[in-house]
């Protein structure tokens, strides 16, 4: 009962525009007060803030953001788009494929979906529109391509999931690789179908000389090297994920220097942006930590788990139901907040049903990311709409077919969990 009251309070707080992290923290504090009075509130607040923030495992979050900020500042994205375009240019819809490919490559060095959408909107959307693409496809595609950043390693949200679920950060990160590749292919396939149905949506491509193709590789090189530096060191165990993130940040800065963009202003901007986003994320984590004490003391988690486990339905039904819940939550809530609020409650149930926690993390991140490109709170859509100067509704419609492609991939993961677990499993073998 008190859990319900506290959740309603949290919702009200969110609606009167209390920032998400603070809303969760205030609701949690209120719950603790109901539960144990002021002494418990003060007791929890004495240890929760430091405990929530001072966890070594959290340090990849700011470092991955910093790396992406440096990559963006280096301006390499324009070159990536151009390079991919040169390679696939002959095909109708080549620029769309180029945008997806460049997005996937950027995802390999960026951990945040919305940041990726913002960057891609700058580099790809406007160029696609200029090249004669329908505005719907150009904006919708890029908004969805942004979500690849949360799947392809490195991914901030997967790091956070690993911490919540007490799984190896390295394995969870690496687990996103194959799903990220599959989503990329699904997006390209969807694009091709759309163009087949409506050829006027995309201009014909143009041929490029092999010399241009080979020369274009030089721009992809540094980004692939950075990906290898980060994901490679984690996969081969050269460094822990945290250290790999630090290497990535330094590598990102090196790219900035190599491209002669390492001005004081650019560096300062990158660092300021990094702190702003990561403090916001950490505030949500801090809020969830406080709320967590309340949720734990009400014992709602074991109650729910016992109840669901007692239901006489196949595990797959419960998983599909949970999957729908995550899509729904994604419509309304921030992705980090969704994980912080649900994983401690839901994961025990999922493992009880016999599913793998790493697989589940990849699945729910994929599903929760749909919320970023769907109404009413599609942050990626707003970012792309603002950059491209198009109405948000148009972008939402444009994104819809690509969202369906993502849903299809999610369904594939539910049917064949081994797709997700294949690569991380190779990490355990001697």
């Amino acid at each position, binding site marked *: 009962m008190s859990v319900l009251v506290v959740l309603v309070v949290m919702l009200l707080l969110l609606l009167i525009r*209390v920032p998400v992290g603070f809303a969760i923290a205030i609701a949690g504090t209120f719950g603790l007060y109901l539960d144990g009075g002021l002494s418990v509130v003060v007791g929890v607040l004495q240890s929760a803030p430091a405990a929530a923030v001072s966890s070594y495992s959290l340090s990849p979050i700011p470092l991955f953001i910093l790396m992406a900020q440096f990559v963006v500042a280096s301006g390499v994205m324009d070159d990536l788009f151009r390079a991919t375009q040169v390679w696939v240019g002959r095909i109708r819809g080549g620029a769309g494929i180029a945008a997806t490919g460049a997005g996937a490559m950027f995802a390999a060095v960026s951990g945040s979906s919305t940041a990726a959408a913002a960057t891609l909107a700058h580099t790809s959307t406007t160029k696609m529109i200029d090249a004669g693409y329908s505005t719907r496809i150009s904006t919708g595609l890029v908004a969805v391509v942004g979500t690849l950043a949360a799947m392809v390693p490195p991914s901030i949200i997967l790091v956070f999931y690993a911490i919540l679920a007490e799984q190896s950060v390295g394995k969870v990160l690496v687990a996103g690789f194959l799903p990220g590749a599959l989503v990329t292919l699904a997006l390209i396939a969807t694009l091709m179908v759309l163009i087949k149905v409506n050829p006027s949506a995309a201009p014909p491509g143009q041929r490029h000389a092999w010399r241009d193709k080979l020369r274009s590789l030089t721009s992809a090189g540094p980004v692939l090297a950075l990906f290898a530096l980060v994901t490679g060191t984690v996969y081969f165990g050269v460094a822990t994920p945290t250290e790999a993130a630090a290497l990535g940040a330094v590598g990102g800065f090196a790219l900035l220097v190599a491209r002669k963009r390492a001005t004081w202003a650019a560096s300062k901007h990158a660092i300021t942006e990094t702190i702003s986003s990561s403090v916001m994320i950490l505030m949500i984590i801090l809020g969830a930590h406080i709320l967590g004490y309340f949720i734990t003391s009400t014992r709602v988690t074991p109650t729910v788990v016992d109840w669901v486990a007692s239901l006489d339905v196949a595990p797959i039904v419960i998983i599909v139901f949970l999957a729908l819940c995550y899509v729904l939550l994604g419509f309304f809530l921030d992705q980090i907040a969704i994980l912080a609020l649900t994983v401690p409650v839901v994961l025990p149930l999922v493992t009880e049903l016999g599913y793998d926690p790493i697989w589940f993390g990849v699945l729910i991140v994929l599903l929760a990311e749909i919320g970023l490109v769907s109404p009413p709170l599609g942050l990626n859509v707003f970012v792309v709409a603002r950059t491209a100067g198009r109405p948000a509704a148009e972008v939402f419609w444009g994104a819809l077919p690509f969202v369906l492609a993502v849903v299809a991939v999610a369904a594939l993961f539910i049917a064949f969990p081994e797709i997700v677990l294949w690569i991380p499993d190779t990490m355990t073998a001697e």
Partner: protein
Amino acid sequence: MTTTDAPRRTRPETATARAGSRVLRAASAVERAAFAVAAGALVTMTLLMVVEIAMRYFIASPIGWNFGFIQDYLLPGYFFLALAYTVRTGAHVTIDVVYQRCPAPVRAAMTVIARVLMLGLSALLLWAGLLTTHDAWSSRDIPPPGGAELSIPTWTWHVLVPVGAALLTVRLVCDLAARRDVRRDDEKGDDA
């Protein structure tokens, strides 16, 4: 829609408001200084890890204290010292669907209620943080030398919480006070 919280800039019009604006400027200056320290913590963390990897691989002699130092000082340092600044610059995600459909007076009321509640949380954090710091101070908690952690009294990291909470409390009080005293023009991003 989801946006980030918009920053506020005040336009002083009376003598009291001028005095008030001096306080606001001072608060902003302190916030910026704390933010600069936070930025330093982030950069230090990055470099410390790279040095650790190098030490381990090239001379097989890891630093050792980096783990505890990052965990106890750098991570909380960069978060708590930057918190007030990020609240001022509107770095925190808010949900604006309802807000945007409300008339101006309701919006103003929502903003005031939101700030008051945040102020309450911040004051509690400040109080609890002071208690913890005082405990650590008065019982002279210190990791013994020779261990993995640097032998520095633990109040030096416990204090980061009340310092951050104090900055945040001042920021929220300033926001509320400024709202009452002065007419506001609609805001533009504050620089830093």
